[in-house]
């Protein structure tokens, strides 16, 4: 159904943000420090950067933090007493200034965390989080959202999508129920808006490859070891691509403490050599080429197959963060265009 359209000025936007803050909501937004822009907890609009192409890290930390306490425990006189997390106490969060591709990524995360047994902590955080995205007015050679079903102005996944109209005003498209709820709370700040010139303010992102050809291309290449070895010769096996990726959700569980302690969940990455090491010493994916293949297969073949959602939103963060310039767009295009 058609989303309602409004428009909102910069001062009104600043007011809206301070309303969120005074309502006790945490605001996660892009903030510039030096030559890098990254998500950080902000207090007001001035701290927020809107003139960048993309942040270093994705906003997934709002729902899937780097380190998260699952529960704490205490052992005394031979008994162990477990104290669950009080999900009610989780803070309300607004993720502001994320890009349409990031918003779409949360859909992928939701699919993973609710695949077979729903993750209560993730779902509780998601319920308390509102996504106020800002459409892209500029892109670079790493972006390929249009090739994976997204777009610089796509509304999918956002609760509200703002588009900078260039004249100090923002078009606000109210997409979801949460968006409407937020709108009611601050009706005065918004003015009716037509949104006719939205297309003009968006960035141009050419389609880089044919998505349908990727899955069969992967299947064809699957056991062509030389191909994968050639592609991944540069890769050094660090975790940077997985950690900045909005759709990567692999995690590790660690218990810390002695008599009293906590069970912690923290990020992990299939790129690490020891990610699949068995206690026996056997490692099903000993070679970096196999791990690189796994990354592409999981995002472009396994997730669509099992969770019905693509594991990549084309944000280009992994290529920008990679120390050795493993450009995922380049590799996917090679797979898609390869002769049958």
């Amino acid at each position: 159904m058609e989303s309602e359209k409004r428009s909102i000025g910069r001062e009104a936007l600043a007011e809206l943000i301070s309303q969120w803050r005074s309502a006790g909501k945490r605001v996660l937004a892009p903030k510039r420090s030096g030559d890098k822009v990254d998500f950080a907890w902000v207090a007001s609009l001035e701290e927020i950067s809107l003139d960048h192409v993309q942040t270093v890290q994705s906003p997934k930390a709002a729902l899937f933090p780097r380190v998260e306490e699952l529960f704490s425990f205490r052992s005394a006189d031979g008994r162990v007493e477990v104290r669950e997390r009080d999900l009610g106490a989780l803070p309300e969060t607004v993720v502001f200034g994320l890009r349409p591709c990031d918003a779409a990524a949360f859909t992928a995360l939701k699919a993973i965390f609710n695949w077979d047994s729903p993750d209560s902590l993730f779902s509780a955080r998601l319920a308390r989080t509102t996504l106020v995205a800002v459409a892209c007015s500029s892109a670079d050679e790493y972006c390929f959202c249009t090739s994976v079903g997204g777009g610089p102005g796509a509304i999918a996944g956002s609760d509200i999508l703002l588009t900078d109209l260039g004249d100090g005003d923002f078009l606000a498209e109210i997409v979801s129920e949460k968006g409407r709820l937020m709108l009611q709370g601050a009706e005065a700040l918004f003015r009716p808006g037509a949104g006719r010139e939205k297309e003009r303010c968006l960035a141009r992102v050419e389609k880089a490859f044919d998505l349908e050809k990727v899955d069969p291309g992967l299947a064809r290449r699957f056991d062509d070891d030389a191909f994968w070895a050639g592609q991944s010769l540069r890769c050094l096996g660090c975790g940077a691509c997985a950690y900045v990726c909005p759709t990567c959700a692999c995690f590790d569980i660690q218990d810390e403490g002695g008599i009293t302690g906590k069970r912690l969940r923290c990020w992990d990455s299939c790129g690490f050599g020891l990610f699949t090491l068995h206690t026996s010493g056997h490692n099903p994916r000993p070679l970096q080429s196999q791990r690189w293949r796994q990354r592409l297969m999981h995002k472009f073949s396994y997730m669509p197959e099992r969770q019905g959602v693509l594991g990549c939103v084309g944000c280009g963060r992994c290529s920008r963060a990679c120390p050795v310039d493993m450009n995922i767009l380049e590799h996917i295009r090679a797979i898609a265009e390869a002769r049958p």
Partner: protein
Amino acid sequence: MSALQEKARELLASAAVQVVIGYGRGSGGAARAVFIREATKAGDLVFDGTCLQNLAVYLMKPEVRKLGKAALVVRPATLRTILQLAAENQIAENSLLALVPSAEEIVLLATFAAIEAHVAALDSDLSTAEKAELQRFTALGLDERRRFWEEQFSRCLKCYACRAACPLCYCTRCTVECNQPQWIPVPAHDLGNLEWNVMRAMHLAGRCVNCGDCSRACPVGIPLYLLNQKLVSDVFTGFNSRSGISARSDNALSTFKPNDPEDFIR
């Protein structure tokens, strides 16, 4: 066809080497590592200001070693890395050739002795700018330094890109992956990040050749080079020992001198 490409073509054609590891066109206008295995592809090699990565890291990757004898396009830091790796029994002399790209003609270094002579002619010390920045930082107050590093380490993701990019971090099972006992916490919380960064710096003390790849690889831009340069200068001023200048030198921390300074010991 530049002199570098010509020499690469010649080496591959004569099968003197099985692969030439150099820099090629990358995305975002910067160069990236490229592995040329056929003489005809030698044209892909470039060498300009964006060729910064220390390619010696690939000498330690099993998949690259399997390709056979390699010719490596080197910068001064790469040569120092090769000597340090040799001093740590990690590479054999006949497993590589060093290609020093310079404007006039390409210098080919085939033995550790040749590399040592070449490095000896260069200045392996920290640059005056690096020394000045180090000096400015150490002049800060104790608390100021603590707050600076707490903020920096709070942003560390523990993605280990610094470890992966460092050619001297070649340990197959790093202390970080040792869980009995769990020396370094796995989660990227502030205490874990501090212990990880102290351990990384200490394990590079007397070994790091200051190539700067760890700082370039860090996605969140933590100035790791400061830690390593601090220890490079401490090891030099304290023990007059410098890494990466000889293929046979002992590590500064596994040797000692009877008169090492001990004013801090009661």
